């Protein structure tokens, strides 16, 4: 398995270079260094000299990808792409174009994101699996049909609606929780309770349907029939055997998102004023801060690859028949 993990990590290097190159190309197709300078210097009284000065100070006065003026290796290394990308592989994110330390910003903002994302994931798993089990248990009955219809209805409604309705009902109408905001420390629970509840509720429809399908597929297998014939109770059967055997597809969806949890949820964080990482990249794109965009895309890619590797490893844990080689 060790060799497998090492090999997968080595595969990741060209992928990350590719992602970085693609981010770079996409960003600079839309924005030129002059545009970035104008955006950072403000709308009023920006002179060409100020633009040139800003570019020189931030290292955007070089050619993008190839420096014909330079000699030897310098043709590739004395470029914006090389200068801005090479440190990423050492996880040195440097400063944003606005002058802030990106690593420190990420370190500050990941905790509020996790305060939402982790409970949503854990509670969500508990609720979705239980609900899906319930539907599987009552398969073919009016309860199952009602549950599926309810799931379809729930998954057809936008998250935005749940957020606005939740804020209206629980904060504005019933005055039970703050409508938005955040406090660090133990006081944070008052602010995360509603977004977490909404996050879980919003995912109920789609996740429960997916898990129900997995359980139904499993429930018709021979070993289940055998267990039932041997007198095993239905809950014991479902939670003791069916769930265990259905874990592989569930893990596929869950483990892969684990490392990316701290990247946050843009909409929930925006509406609830949670100072997480959800809006960090979007804000950076809007303010044409390439340093943050490339750092976040790089980090997202690294974490996604990590998630995939973790998923593969987790398969071996839940299904001894699987061997990584």
């Amino acid at each position, binding site marked *: 398995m060790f060799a497998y993990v090492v090999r997968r990590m080595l595969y990741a290097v060209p992928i990350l270079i590719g992602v970085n190159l693609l981010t770079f190309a996409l960003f600079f197709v839309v924005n030129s260094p002059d545009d970035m300078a104008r955006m950072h210097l403000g709308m009023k009284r920006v002179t060409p000299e100020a633009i040139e000065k800003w570019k020189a100070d931030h290292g955007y006065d070089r050619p993008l990808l190839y420096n014909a003026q330079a000699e030897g290796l310098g043709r590739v290394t004395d470029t914006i792409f090389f200068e801005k990308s090479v440190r990423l592989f050492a996880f040195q994110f440097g400063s944003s174009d606005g002058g802030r330390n990106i690593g*420190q910003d990420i370190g500050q903002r990941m905790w509020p994101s996790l305060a939402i994302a982790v409970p949503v994931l854990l509670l969500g798993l508990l609720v979705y699996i239980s609900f899906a089990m319930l539907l599987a248990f009552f398969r073919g009955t009016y309860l199952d049909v009602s549950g599926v219809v309810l799931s379809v209805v729930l998954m057809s409604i936008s998250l935005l609606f749940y957020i606005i309705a939740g804020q209206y009902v629980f904060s504005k109408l019933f005055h039970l929780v703050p409508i938005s905001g955040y406090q660090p420390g133990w006081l944070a629970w008052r602010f995360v309770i509603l977004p977490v509840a909404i996050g879980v509720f919003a995912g109920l429809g789609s996740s429960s349907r997916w898990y129900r399908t997995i359980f139904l597929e499993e429930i018709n297998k021979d070993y289940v029939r055998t267990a039932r014939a041997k007198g095993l109770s239905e809950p014991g059967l479902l939670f003791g055997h069916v769930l265990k055997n259905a874990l592989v597809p569930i893990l596929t969806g869950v483990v892969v998102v684990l490392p990316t949890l701290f990247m946050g949820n843009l909409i929930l964080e925006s509406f609830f004023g949670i100072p997480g990482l959800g809006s960090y990249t979007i804000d950076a794109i809007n303010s044409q801060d390439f340093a943050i965009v490339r750092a976040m895309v790089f980090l997202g890619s690294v974490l996604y690859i990590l998630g995939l590797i973790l998923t593969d490893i987790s398969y071996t844990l839940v299904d001894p028949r699987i061997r990584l080689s």
Partner: protein
Amino acid sequence: MGAHRRAKSRTGRWLAAFLSLGLALVGGCDGQPWNSPYPPDEAGRNILYSSFSSRPNHLDPVQSYSSNEIVYNGQIYEPPLQYHYLKRPYRLIPLTATRMPRPYYLDAGGRRLPDDADPGDIAFSVYEIEIRPGIRYQPHPAFARDADGRFLYHNLSADDLEDVETLSDFEHTGSRELVAADYVHEIKRLAHPHLHSPIYGIMADYIVGLKEYAARLRAEQERLEKKAPGPVFLDLTQYPLAGAEVLDRYRYRITIKGKYPQFKYWLAMPFFAPVPPEADRFYAQPGMKERNITLDWYPVGTGPYLLAVNNPNRQMVLARNPNFHGETYPAQGEPGDAGKGLLADAGKPLPMIDRIVFSLEKEAIPTWNKFLQGYYDTSGVSSDSFDQAIQVGSGGEMTLTDEMKRKGIQLSTSVSTSIFYMGFNMLDPVIGGYSKRARLLRRAIAIAVDYEEFISIFANGRGIPAQSPIPPGIFGHRDGRDGINPYVYDWTPRGPVRKPVSEARRLLAEAGYPDGRDIRTGKPLVLNLDTTASGPDDKARLDWLRKQFAKLDIQLVIRGTDYNRFQDKMLKGTAQIFQWGWNADYPDPENFLFLLYGRNGKVEHNGENAANYANPEYDRLFEQMKAMDDGPERQAIIDHMVEILRRDSPWLFGYHPLQFALFHAWYHNVKPNLMANNTLKYRRIDAALRQNKRREWNRPVLWPLGLVALLLVLSVLPAWISYRRHETRRALEEAG
């Protein structure tokens, strides 16, 4: 025994945590409403609550220019002058200066000229500013000294900074008296090679020697960088600047090229606030920038407030500066202020509020609802909440709705000193130029585009149609019959009335486009509007614009573009028609009329004249008007300039927005002051009234929780019954 005790203690801790959570859950621990977004210990305190939607980029006074930055810097930094809070028209008064500086003039040979000298003879204007003694900086680690008087934190090593993450991690702070040299230091910083001051360009044209100073600093920077690679600290105290000199401890001199009466307004902006050289030295140390500890992030001022919390991801907090020199609430205002209670606090010490908490709110709905719940003390009126807040009377007057009145909310309105206009690119062969044909075409469009309708539909009536570039409240603006644009409006007893479309069509025909077709080619007239507003939200507005042009049978093509491409088009002069706006920097007509000055043309000079308008007569008058003091002579020249603009019509004068602000009954001394940046020190909060109202408006409603629980039980019940039935069924029955 020990294990038993440990287990018992563990259980006790869990129980305590559970109980405290439960108590907090029911809101019984602090008596605060459950939906309060603030910590319990803030209840009933003298704190102002506000919000911000976009994080500030710069808090260094040499760089910050945006309103979302000035709102903090204005309370922290103190330039020598400020605007009187209550008096109108806007009037400058001393802030840290002992008196208003009166410039004296010199000719090219350095000889003193009389005050009324011809501006053409004036080579230099000299401002000598004296500041008050005894003003002290806020506590800051940059000033901290040891027992021997050496700076504690000016030679920090990597080890010293190991445990430092924010400015508050420095244990010791110090302070010192404000001196004239700090003001001079800040003026030098305008030219610093690593600081990008937005006003360097304009100031380099005026402050004697600033351009050369910037070149010298750049060369010095490069020399030092070559000498020792790595971060370089440029000690500006070692490099004198001819145009900014220290005369003595409390006096300094600024020398300006020529006569520039508007310079006094710059002296009321944070660009000219003092920055102590110790702060620059402190923040320039290796390792500081990596920790986000910079002057751009942690200001050092002498103002009524200091930045206590700087977390733009969540909250910015201003706290009372313990070293504030003291100031009192003004005793005079304009007529009517006393009746509105604006003079009730006359003579009381400032600031009146202990802390100001700005919370990040990215969405309008939560912000508005928190204002209604009493958690924000003031709010703007977005178009989403307009109908809930404002009702329009039969005569068009706008008042608060009954719901707002019941809550005691008050409304404050003011015409902003800004303009939104539609510009014609004067370099364009069709719509631009100075021929009669082009002039008539632009005037016809000016009549057809009905800005009264635009304001009514898209701005909820919050605006007044502009008759010239100069907004109300600025010298040079004229009201009534004398103030209308006679090319677009007729004067009637009811006020100005837009000329009929038939008149516009007549002008169009005269221009050579009868029924919207070019008389020479017979082809329909097609014009292009370049805009960054091309999303779904803008569709209605753009459709409306097309309809306005269609009144004249002109086809308007909307060329939606992103902001970067739009800027490119403007710089290259390839746009035909565009929409833009301008906010006043200072209350002088020069700050609006320069937007059409030929030497500010966007294409040729990269200036703010986006229409690239260049009329020699207008330019001549502008240069004359710019150097004049307010008076009938200046007004006459402005009238002439405005007439030229109306005749040439390089702009369709659009509208001046009306600003609406709502505030609660406990928020006092609110008077819109669109020029001043430091108004928060005048405001007062009745914290006890706010606390009562918050409790009254936010009583938790508990019965729905019971209802939800009951519904859950009811929904689970059939499943449970079904499960029990399934589990107790006999196998035979099941088979049968």
